[in-house]
């Protein structure tokens, strides 16, 4: 077990930021901490890194108690902060070299690692730029390079894609996958469910400092009753047709409003075919058809009664 957090409690005055929070991370995993803003993700990370005092609980990293002076443990941890943590006065290559140098003493090794980090995040042509000259996406890449240059065994990324353009976001996510393939265990916090769904091998859904659910993407979605939802644009639908549709196999509910028919299923196969066959048999003309699988937002909604982005 690379990270083992048990029963962690952290208070900010009267606010309970972490409420008996547990987290276990095994080697080779990409664990996603998913939750809305203020759910306690960053607080949990800062406690794990020994930046924050906490009121109760135990934190072990690499099987040993984590402490501010646990330098041997820290040597194998990489951190990518939510806020970009670089020096504006240093160039891209100097920033990476500086932070890498806090972990790696040998100048030759450091030079090689810096070059690899620059290549990894694709900042080769910007290596002599100062951070203020970089776009938001490139700046985030630099922030990541500063956290990974020393090749940590455990990499913690706290919302690394906030305010990043889609192209840079995809590049960042692909880079994290590659690091994981090379053997780095990753803890990734985000409130973007799509990112967590795409990236993480295991997901921890958090809210109000508590762990609400843990599992793989499929395991979490199977926890809720909803299956796919099929939506059809059609101009006319008689109430008796709607009643018939509700009788189709696996339909849990169906409604028609604003020229749009929405049909929810609890599972089953060939649901779309069956629905379209019915509409054709009734000679109902329709336009576009959509099929949506349940999302982690549906899971969050089912558990908390709130949207993930509320």
């Amino acid at each position, binding site marked *: 077990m690379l990270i083992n957090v048990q029963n962690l409690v952290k208070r900010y005055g009267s606010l309970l930021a972490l409420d008996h929070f547990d987290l276990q991370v095994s080697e080779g995993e990409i664990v996603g901490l998913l939750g809305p803003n203020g759910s306690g993700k960053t607080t949990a990370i*800062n406690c794990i890194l020994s930046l*924050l005092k906490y009121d109760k609980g135990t934190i072990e990293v690499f099987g040993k108690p984590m402490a501010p002076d646990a330098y041997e443990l820290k040597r194998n941890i990489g*951190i990518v902060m939510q806020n970009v*943590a670089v020096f504006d006065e*240093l160039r891209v290559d100097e920033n990476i070299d500086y932070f890498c140098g*806090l972990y790696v003493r040998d100048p030759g090794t450091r030079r090689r690692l810096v070059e690899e980090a620059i290549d990894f995040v694709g900042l080769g042509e910007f290596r002599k730029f100062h951070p203020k000259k970089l776009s938001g996406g490139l700046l985030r890449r630099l922030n990541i390079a500063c956290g990974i240059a020393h090749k940590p065994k455990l990499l913690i990324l706290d919302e690394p894609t906030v305010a990043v353009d889609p192209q840079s976001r995809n590049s960042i996510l692909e880079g994290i996958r590659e690091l994981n393939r090379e053997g780095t265990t990753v803890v990734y916090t985000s409130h973007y469910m799509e990112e967590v769904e795409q990236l993480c091998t295991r997901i921890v859904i958090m809210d109000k400092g508590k762990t609400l659910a843990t599992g793989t993407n499929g395991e979490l979605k199977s926890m809720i009753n909803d299956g796919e939802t099929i939506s059809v644009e059609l101009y006319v639908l008689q109430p008796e047709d709607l009643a018939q549709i509700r009788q189709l196999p696996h339909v849990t509910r169906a409604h028609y409003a604003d020229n749009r028919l929405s049909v929810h299923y609890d599972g089953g196969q060939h649901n779309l075919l069956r629905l379209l066959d019915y509409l054709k048999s009734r000679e109902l003309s329709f336009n576009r058809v959509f099929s949506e699988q349940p999302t982690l937002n549906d899971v969050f909604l089912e558990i908390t009664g709130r949207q993930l982005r509320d």
Partner: protein
Amino acid sequence: MFMHVFSYRLKCLLRDRETVFWTLIFTLLLATLYYFAFGHLTGEQERFDPVRTAVVDSPAYRGDVRFQQVLASLSEPGENQLLELTVADEQQAERMLENGSVAGMITVGESIGLVVKQSGIEQSILKAILDEYAHTTKTVVGILAKNAGAAQQLISELGDRKGYTEQISFSDAVPDTILGFFYALIAMACMYSGFWGLRNAIDVQADLSARGARRSVAPIHKLGVVLADAAAALAVSFAEVLILIAYLAFVLRINFGNQIGYVLLTCFVGCIAGVSFGGFIGTVVRGNEGVKTGILIGASMTMSFLAGLMWVGIKDIIARKAPVLSYINPAALISDAFYSLYIFDSHRRFFVNIGMLCLISAIMCAASFMRLRRERYASV
């Protein structure tokens, strides 16, 4: 590791243009401004020009040999020349007075008279000379009327006037109040080193900056980072103050005496005090970076004001009303260390100032370290 952190810190600080402006360029500009504002008080214009005077040539004047001798002695060329005398007939003297080529016209008759066209310093000097002559003449005549035997002694004492106060110099230097402004300016430059100390404090604390957080999770001892950062800040601020000193000494020709070693020591200890002060504000004062910067600027300027940056007279007021302030104000101690080097041959007062600066710096460093040594934060 120390050299790695130190060298990059040095780069960061030297490339921080905004802070370099306030800690170096601003002080150079202020020095130049002071030079042009006060330079005329110490320059060529301070030299006294003799008062141009016309004496009306008349039988009475030619008959008053003593008065002629007095005027001749006051007109002798040299550093003490008081009058530039022209003997002319009455019409010519009046023309000279009219066209302004003389400040006054002296007439000798039954009594000695002065005719001026306007009032001013030169005219006042002429009047003071004639009043003094008339007063002395009257005194001598009165004494001789009462005691004719005292004539010999009186004549010898008239030529040998005694002063009953004595000006004492503690060194070869000439006291110069204008220097006080420049010393206070150097003190301000030293206190502005606090900007570097403040930046260090912010960049090392996880609850003040993301950089601080990233450095806090690195596998290095915090004290090592703090010392490397402080050494870089001290190097930059000392270099800046040396540039200021060189500018004052070699470009503006400000006299620092001939004790360059002590001058450098004062600058170095002053920079330590400045960096410590910035670190103290950055760690002990609660608030965000803006609040801390505001407090640093306000405190530095207040200390510099109390050290005589804007008005030298404030030092006298503090010496009389609240002397303790002079011993706890680092800017006043720096300024006074320079002044004591310039004025006194003894170094006692200088070392008292340096000692107090070291003590204050040590207290501020200790207080900062007590805050910095915390390993976990209540909030980040």
